[in-house]
């Protein structure tokens, strides 16, 4: 781990850029990943079987985990050189996340869930602009008429649409999606994957999707296979 604190912060041309990464858990699990570079609007599918380390890679890109070897730069800044608070701020303001189990808050309605990031970090200000963007995104993902609906009254597909709107509401430069179609019917998988690709691209965000689902790989700029076999 190189102590490389100062970084060209103006280098926004590259939402995320890594050298070859090595990550190891105490359990003995080890992940090795080739260098990744993503341009704004670019997309990468990370493919591999369960337990191959796809989620771990996303964790390294979001700054939740730090690599044992190698570097992750976001907007030119070295994540490992940032403190915990700075990495949380980075995650809150520059990264949008979508999860397999949707991870919506049951006590909040559709619009409130979409705006949740603004209530979690001081660097994000919940203003009229944020609300307008949330409504616009919900309209774009087809939930314009369900903004006040309770989460438990939504279908799985609708829940993931809320999650996509939430991931994009902060205008992130990088969107990380961990098995975003894993809990969906086959017919919905491609629809949601396409929506994710389209919206991330439209928002100018780089998209990294971890999946073991071959059927959705078609629209991605690049596919990175991890976990040895493929």
């Amino acid at each position: 781990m190189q102590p490389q604190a100062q970084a060209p912060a103006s280098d926004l041309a590259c939402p995320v850029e890594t050298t070859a990464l090595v990550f190891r858990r105490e359990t003995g699990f080890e992940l090795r990943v080739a260098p990744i570079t993503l341009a704004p609007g670019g997309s990468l599918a990370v493919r591999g079987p369960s337990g191959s380390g796809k989620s771990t890679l996303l964790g390294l890109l979001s700054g939740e985990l730090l690599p044992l070897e190698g570097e992750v730069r976001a907007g030119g800044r070295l994540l490992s050189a940032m403190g915990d608070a700075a990495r949380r701020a980075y995650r809150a303001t520059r990264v949008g996340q979508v999860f397999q189990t949707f991870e919506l808050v049951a006590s909040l309605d559709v619009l409130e869930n979409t705006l949740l990031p603004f209530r979690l970090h001081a660097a994000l200000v919940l203003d009229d602009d944020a609300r307008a963007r949330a409504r616009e995104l919900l309209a774009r993902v087809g939930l314009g008429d369900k903004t006040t609906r309770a989460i438990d009254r939504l279908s799985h597909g609708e829940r993931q649409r809320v999650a996509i709107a939430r991931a994009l509401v902060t205008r992130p430069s990088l969107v990380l999606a961990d098995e975003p179609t894993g809990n969906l019917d086959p017919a919905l998988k491609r629809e949601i994957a396409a929506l994710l690709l389209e919206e991330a691209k439209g928002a100018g965000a780089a998209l990294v999707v971890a999946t073991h689902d071959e059927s959705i790989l078609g629209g991605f700029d690049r596919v990175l296979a991890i976990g040895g076999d493929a």
Partner: protein
Amino acid sequence: MIARHALFLAIRSLRHAWRRNALLALALGLALGVPLALTALLDRASVDMRTRAASAPLVLGARGSESDLVFGGLFFAATPPRGLVPQDLARVEGDALATAVPIALGATAGKAPVVGTSIDYFDRRSLRPAAGAMFATIGECVVGSDAARALALAPGARIFTDPASLSDLAGVFPLELTVSGVLPRTRSPDDGAIFVDLPTMWTIRGLGHRHDDPRDAAEPGALIGEDGPRAIAGEALRIERAATDGIAADFHFHGDTQAFPIDAALVYPIDAKAQAILLGRFTGKGETLHLVRPDLFIDRVLERIFGVGRILGGVAIAVAALVLLVAATTFALSIRLRADELALMERLGASRARVAAFLAAEAALVLAAASAVAAVVALTAPLLAPLVMRLTTGG
């Protein structure tokens, strides 16, 4: 900003499981409120009882139960030992050491105790009817504020005394009373009582009545003989006991009213020395009367109640501690059940402090609601003080 968002999320979260949280707040509120309520209630009841006890320096009655004498004579809630008569009052009033106010009990009207006394009773308490006037003739009564409310009595209203009394096996015949006035609220046993003068009380107890002169009576057999100026009445003579307007003057008593029963007398010595002399006067062997200091007696009673109250308070505090423990466990469990939600907040960039603020806001809101419940319980409890007084005095 942090506080506003934490509060927003906390309110949403509490609202989502509102039944559980309302129950939690209620349980906590009661657990915290009950010990406070108990203390407040006992404090209020003891103040009221001490105030009442202090309103009469001494109580005179027939020998027997001291508690029946005090609880009867001052609280109208017990029947003092029988045996006191009006002429006994001369023994305390005789050499101007004190004045005495008679109290005659033994009847109720609409379940409220009817108290026979003199106008002095009200002068001593500076009590004037808030509506209407003081009783003036046989058959008139003034009513305490609570009794007036409970029995819907106003000046001019009429009420029959209750037909039977356990304390008088000879039977108490109903007498219709006319309400002349209603007393102001005093937070004392006066509020629940109906006051009449002694002759009315004796009438209720069957010692006074009115009837036509047997010689003028319409009923055949009303007059069974004449002894000079005296007429001998027969059983057929109609005896009227209702004190309707205009006939009060015809009421009369057969026998010496100085020997009629009263139950207690409130004794007001002119000074401390007079009080000491009077107390010494009723300690002799073979003495049939009893002069007691109600303040000392009530202090002893309250000591016992507070002993019980302290035990109850200890139990209540133990229960409160238990409920707090259960509430804390419930809260901890609810946090664990929402571990995913909290982890999500951190993954989306929330600091641990932000997540902690959210949980703290939730706990604070539940505690605030519980405190409100506790406050309501503790503040309304003293309203039960009259009940405690009644239970204590045996009414």
